[in-house]
């Protein structure tokens, strides 16, 4: 029987068409026939253990589980016959004997699958009079609260770990009634997708630690939003109570995030309520910050900008966070344009601007990633950069796709992948060697030394059917990014692979569409290398959001005037800005993000901005008016969006890369820094989410080197070392890490203590502090 053959079955007297081999529960779900269930989950393997979905099937003497029964032509199913109902009610009675019947004090109460089904299938009085099973609380980290006394052993969480997250962190131990879900040895759950087990758990056994006991399900209002961190653009449900975000859940979107979201998207909302939110406008006079009203602050900002500009618009520039909305970006560019400046950029972490590139599309649909047969990732720790893309790629790998990485340090994988680990300079030679193995020639390529590994990579990409070459955050930050991109493009071309980008932030692509990235003015590095007299910062923190924070702070501090639109105040912002205009944070403003695939996703504000903060597009609009910029009368963000859409000519399509000069800037000898941005350091919001900052992914500033490098320098693990990078320096702990190749020091960026250093990539020397 072929899979697409159709069969007809009858359920409760209703004729239904189904694909042969489909699961009965899928067919009934699609037809809106409700069969109660707990262990079945559409994205997880079938385990048939809860026995709640038992139904009667003709010619079968016993009731059988709908979740594990495939449909056959002519099958007659009875979901509510006396036999089926007796089986379902029997299961319900058993499930409830050891389950606490104290729903009023359970955090899941009101949105509990067990509670809901018990209303229909449970008895009003329990016949079980013995004592119930009790399991002490287990601590599995800062994100997820456990109450395994409530567990009904459906194993959805266990299967999620094994099948989706790709790490078996939870399992079932013990037999019979002593069966228990847990980590066996007490440890935290560290998957970057761990929060999804809260959603798959049908009862109150796994709940959100930060949101637990904060609100009742029926007090919450649900709004829609788009995740503000990576370029996946995961769809979210925001749950509010009285103008406060109480929690964030995924909204199903099969073609984007399926039914999952990353922990970053789920728990970052807590950063909204950080103590350093700016709730009133702030201006600095004679080195002193003072709160003021909007009128004064806006006048102050407009005057300051005007003065810094003088007679030459090129003297000012705008540095925009790539997590800003499309509307904010568009208005920033238009505002700057009105002042005669084309200097607007959101590529704040790019280390090399030589050559030309197309908009950084994924180059394919997100769902296409599932079906790839070969993938080469260049400078991408995708699991910690865009976790949902990592999940998609893992799906492809589990189906047999070959996945390879060219990376400056060995990555922690949750599937089998081929990693070419070499120093920042070695990354270039590795790619050149793969290109050479493909028979290419030219500068960079000709001198490459081809090994078996390079041959194998070339072979895999050439022979596999659907292949792609993807550039990630570490590639973009590389001081020879244009060379990596050029070589990646050559390899993609020679192997008939799609060239794609894994953009860093929620609106990296949108920025390009409205000319905030890749426009014709100065890029971010140039704006800092040739300091401007005035800067406009949008959602940016100088210590943490720039490729080279030392340079950023220096150029900002020397400027005549810096106006910052920000939701937060931070030391480096207060040091360098002259006025801080408080703007709305995540969920507080309407806007649009364009994700990696090129889908425009607009959202409304869900809550009012905190204090006197205002949506940034409104602030920009008033600034534009005060500065007499023409055509700056907008009454809604959708008006801005419409104009931005009309002005944008770039459509998703083939990616391209045109090389600039091909000389290698990365030192071939010595120690070169590879500065990744850790998962929970990516932007101002996530940096302020306390629960995320308590996870194991929230690492602190340190220099990671391999044992040989440590030995050569006479260092031991834990030593405080002075890292010198150009004329900058900082002291931090040394970590000995086998994952780092020779010639490389991994020194993550965007962490407290790294703001004193230079570029994310660059030569460093280490000395004992």
């Amino acid at each position, binding site marked *: 029987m072929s899979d697409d053959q159709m069969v007809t079955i009858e359920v409760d007297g209703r004729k239904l068409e189904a694909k042969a081999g489909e699961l009965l529960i899928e067919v009934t779900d699609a037809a809106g026939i409700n069969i109660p269930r707990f262990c079945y989950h559409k994205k997880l393997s079938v385990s048939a253990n809860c*026995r709640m979905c038992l139904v009667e099937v003709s010619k079968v003497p016993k009731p059988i589980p709908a979740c594990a029964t495939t449909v056959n032509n002519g099958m007659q199913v009875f979901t509510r016959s006396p036999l089926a109902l007796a089986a379902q009610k029997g299961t319900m009675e058993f499930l409830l*004997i050891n389950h606490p019947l104290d729903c009023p004090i359970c955090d899941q109460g009101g949105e509990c699958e067990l509670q809901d089904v018990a209303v229909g299938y449970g008895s009003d009085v329990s*016949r079980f009079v013995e004592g119930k099973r009790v399991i002490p609380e287990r601590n599995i980290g800062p994100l997820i609260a456990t109450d395994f006394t409530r567990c009904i052993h459906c194993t959805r969480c266990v299967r999620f770990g094994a099948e989706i997250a790709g790490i078996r962190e939870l399992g079932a131990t*013990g*037999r019979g009634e002593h069966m228990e879900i847990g980590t066996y040895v007490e440890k935290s759950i560290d998957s970057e997708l761990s929060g999804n087990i809260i959603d798959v758990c049908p009862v109150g056994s796994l709940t959100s630690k930060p949101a637990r006991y904060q609100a009742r399900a029926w007090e919450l209002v649900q709004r829609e939003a788009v995740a503000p961190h990576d370029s996946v653009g995961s769809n979210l449900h925001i749950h509010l109570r009285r103008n406060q975000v109480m929690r964030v859940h995924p909204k199903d979107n099969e073609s984007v995030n399926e039914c999952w979201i990353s922990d970053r998207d789920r728990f970052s909302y807590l950063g909204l309520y950080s103590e350093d939110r700016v709730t009133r406008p702030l201006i600095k006079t004679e080195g002193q910050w003072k709160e003021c009203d909007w009128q004064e602050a806006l006048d102050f900002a407009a005057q300051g900008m005007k003065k810094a500009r003088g007679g030459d618009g090129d003297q000012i520039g705008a540095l925009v966070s790539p997590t800003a909305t499309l509307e904010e970006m568009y208005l920033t560019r238009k505002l700057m344009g009105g002042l005669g400046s084309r200097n607007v950029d959101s590529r704040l972490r790019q280390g090399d601007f030589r050559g030309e590139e197309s908009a950084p599309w994924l180059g394919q649909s997100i769902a296409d990633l599932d079906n790839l047969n070969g993938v080469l990732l260049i400078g991408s720790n995708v699991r910690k950069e865009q976790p949902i893309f990592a999940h998609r790629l893992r799906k492809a790998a589990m189906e047999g796709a070959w996945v390879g990485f060219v990376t400056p340090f060995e990555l922690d994988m949750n599937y089998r992948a081929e990693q070419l680990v070499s120093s920042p300079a070695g990354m270039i030679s590795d790619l050149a060697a793969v290109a050479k193995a493909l028979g290419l020639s030219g500068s960079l390529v000709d001198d490459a030394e081809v090994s078996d590994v390079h041959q194998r990579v070339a072979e895999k990409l050439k022979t596999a059917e659907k292949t792609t070459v993807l550039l990630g955050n570490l590639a973009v930050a590389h001081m020879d990014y244009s060379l990596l991109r050029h070589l990646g493009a050559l390899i993609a071309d020679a192997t008939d692979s799609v060239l794609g980008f894994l953009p860093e932030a929620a609106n990296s692509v949108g920025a390009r569409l409205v000319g905030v990235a890749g426009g014709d003015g100065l890029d971010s590095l140039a704006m800092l290398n040739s300091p401007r007299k005035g800067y406009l910062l949008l959602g940016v923190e100088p210590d943490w959001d720039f490729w080279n924070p030392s340079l950023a702070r220096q150029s900002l501090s020397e400027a005549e005037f810096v106006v910052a639109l920000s939701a937060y105040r931070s030391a480096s912002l207060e040091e360098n800005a002259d006025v801080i205009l408080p703007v709305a944070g995540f969920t507080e403003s309407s806007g649009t993000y364009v994700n990696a695939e090129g889908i425009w996703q607009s959202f409304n504000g869900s809550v009012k901005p905190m204090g006197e903060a205002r949506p940034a597009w409104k602030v920009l609009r008033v600034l534009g008016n005060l500065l007499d910029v023409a055509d700056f009368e907008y009454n809604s963000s959708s008006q801005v969006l419409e104009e931005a859409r009309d002005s944008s000519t770039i459509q998703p399509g083939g990616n391209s890369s045109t090389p600039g000069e091909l000389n290698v800037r990365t030192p071939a000898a010595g120690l070169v820094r590879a500065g990744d941005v850790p998962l929970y350091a990516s932007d101002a919001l996530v940096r302020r989410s306390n629960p995320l900052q308590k996870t194991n992914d929230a690492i602190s500033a340190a220099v990671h080197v391999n044992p040989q490098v440590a030995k050569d320098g006479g260092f031991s693990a834990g030593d405080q070392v002075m890292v010198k990078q150009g004329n900058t320096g900082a002291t931090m702990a040394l970590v000995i890490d086998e994952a780092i190749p020779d010639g490389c020091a991994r020194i993550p960026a965007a962490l407290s203590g790294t703001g004193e250093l230079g570029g994310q990539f660059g030569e460093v020397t280490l000395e004992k502090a």
Partner: protein
Amino acid sequence: MANEVCLRNLDQDRPWLLKRYQAAGGYEVLSRILKENTPPDEIIEEVKASGLRGRGGAGFPTGLKWSFIARNAPGQKYVVCNSDEGEPGTFKDRDILRYNPHQLIEGMIIAGYAIGATVGYNYIRGEFWEPYRRFEDALEEARAAGFLGKNLLGSGFDFQLHSHLGAGAYICGEETALLESIEGKKGQPRYKPPFPAHFGLYGRPTIINNTESLASIPVILEKGGSWFKKLGVENSGGSKLFSISGHINNPGVFEIPLGTPFSELLEMAGGMKEGSKMKAVIPGGSSAPVIPGDQMMDLTMDYDAIAKAGSMLGSGAVIVMDDSTCMVKVLERMSYFYHEESCGQCTPCREGTGWLYRVVSRIENGKGRPEDLALLDDMTVKIAGRTICALGDAAAMPVQGMLKHYRDEFEYHIEHKRCMTGG
């Protein structure tokens, strides 16, 4: 006529040694098959003709099971022997492992040949340390003699056999839990279908048979399927090992033709202990419903006769109880066993076995309530047939049997808060 198949070598000194087994004609059937290149279908047909039914308890025809495997399908296939003899009352496979390990090895190699498998596993109950050691020694002997390994006896057929010692979980005797356990996972039954013949060990086609079934194969092929079949009666071919225990003089393992009257088996086991009168018999291991003694004396030991009496032949574990036995106490002990051994995977068994035990226990301990018997009746219906594997049925059936035949004892316990037998 006794001891004709699996225990036919018991009269010898140290019969487990290879030389003794070979001296009695052991490995000759295998040698002949390998030499003559006997078509596998012929072997399977002969096994079918023997009427051999699975000796582990379910009684599924062995030859039919073998024929489910697509012999010519590419890739690895496996033969697995279930020596995880854990059913309370059963201790027959232990004696095969101790006294006739080579006949089992020969049977497994032939099974491998018949289905095209080159690897076999014998999963041995965790508590069987001595039988495990002896089986391991036998494997070493067989390997050294060229009966296991590559290119057996120059035939081009490869077969390697490994033993695997369990860790003491009753549920690992369930065939798919056993496979999970070999794979290194938690011993939990799989949902079926797919059956092991299609998706077995490591997802490959697998036959899994009981020790006694596999050890019977060489004799069946030596003497012919019809010879074996004629040992027994209609629908119950061959002879079978019975492990008989309880209030009898000579408990032990007896190999007798199927269809032998129970009274004869009892006689071989030395009859009831002095001064005791038979009260009840569990004819097929603790999962089989109890049969009152007087009814049992009229039965023959074969699949149909026992089934007709409302119980099952099971693994052939016969537990004889005299009139000093308190049936409530017996059921409490058995219910505790199933409660303790439930794997915990599916709801009715995980929750139901514990509840069953607690209710029976409170009756035994003088705290029973008048509604408890109806509760027990109801619970057994909600467990049996609703679980992933047969452990749910195994836990429910003894309760149903006891309440059917000895309800008065339970009622007496509830009413008088003590035992009517004085026990």
